[in-house]
């Protein structure tokens, strides 16, 4: 009887622990070989044919289509440069340069994974071809609910959001991170 109880207890604990750890790692770990630069993270190997099982499981579980390695690379930020989670109730300033690429887009997504709702007169996505730059090719993007001078991302809503910067046709993927990845800084301004 004690043996049976022992086996049952091992099975119950083992299955729940294994299930929880599998779920957790698929949700949070995006596979191996991430490129990190400040708050930005990219997974260049998600777009190649040799992928680790965690990345496959993740793309199956959330139905996403990775950007192929020859197409480009997506950098994602869920925190600012200080490590605090990005909140729609705060203002942010994105400043700096991106790694070389043919073009890039910056899109804000809400916590449900949808493109964030724009504030009146604002937009929640920017394209590199239509952006104001400084003479040294760097740029500054203000993220705020109220209209801002220069490049402006205006969102309305509550809760956390994430920023995805997609570099299309970039040499970073070909060199596995040998090119320095200078990504823009995200600094937090006022919060409401």
């Amino acid at each position: 009887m004690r043996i049976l109880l022992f086996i049952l207890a091992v099975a119950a604990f083992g299955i729940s622990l294994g299930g929880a750890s599998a779920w957790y790692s698929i949700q949070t770990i995006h596979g191996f070989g991430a490129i990190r630069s400040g708050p930005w993270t990219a997974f260049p190997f998600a777009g190649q044919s040799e992928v680790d099982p965690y990345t496959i499981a993740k793309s199956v579980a959330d139905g996403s289509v990775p950007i192929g390695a020859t197409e480009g690379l997506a950098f994602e930020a869920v925190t600012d440069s200080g490590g605090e989670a990005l909140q729609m109730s705060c203002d942010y300033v994105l400043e700096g340069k991106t790694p070389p690429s043919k073009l890039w887009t910056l899109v804000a997504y809400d916590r449900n994974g949808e493109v964030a709702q724009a504030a009146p007169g604002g937009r929640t996505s920017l394209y590199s071809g239509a952006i104001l730059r400084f003479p040294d090719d760097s740029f500054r993007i203000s993220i705020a609910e109220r209209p801002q001078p220069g490049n402006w991302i205006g969102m309305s809503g509550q809760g956390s959001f994430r920023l995805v910067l997609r570099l299309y046709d970039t040499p970073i993927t070909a060199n596995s991170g040998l090119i320095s990845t200078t990504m823009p800084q995200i600094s937090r301004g006022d919060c409401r």
Partner: protein
Amino acid sequence: MIWRLVYFAICVLVVAGIVHIAIVLLIPQYGTQDAYDVVSARTDEWSFTTLDSPDERSPLSDIDPFFSYGVCRFDLSESGVWIRGDDFNAFWSATVLNSDGTVAYSLNRRTSIDGKLDLVLFDPVLILRLREAQPAEIERSIVIEADMRKGFVVVRSLKPDASWDSETGKFMQSISCERYLPEPAAPEPAEEEQPAS
């Protein structure tokens, strides 16, 4: 007592490890929410479908609003697939994925031949027939050996603002996705006549 607890903990960890690995490895086989299944529910095989209708949510998650997306599902078990599109001057890219959503091949406008989308996919068996036949019509295509049966191709084309809608739309409309099998190599006339003589 303490040894009993250690023994119990080790047993739990071993079971947990097996369950963890099994779940991660089995998700691709039993998952029903992956991109291929979502695309299957919305599109027919062998037809290129543009995904962005304004009133509907795109079936793909994590899409870039500056791009127009189109997909074509194919099955390489009986024939190859030939994906062709007209010349388009703005940036476009294409990714070939298998049914797990893993990228098998990707290209963009700059890495294509003459900036044209012209892609032929074959599985490793049928590609041998292609090598034998060496058909002239796909001389200028990119031929890829893809070790998969069912899969799909996603084409993204840049649409920076609404004024691009017609141009991008025209390019997406021009893309065809059809079965392709090389004609068996024509027997040489000299060889055919030999047995008769």
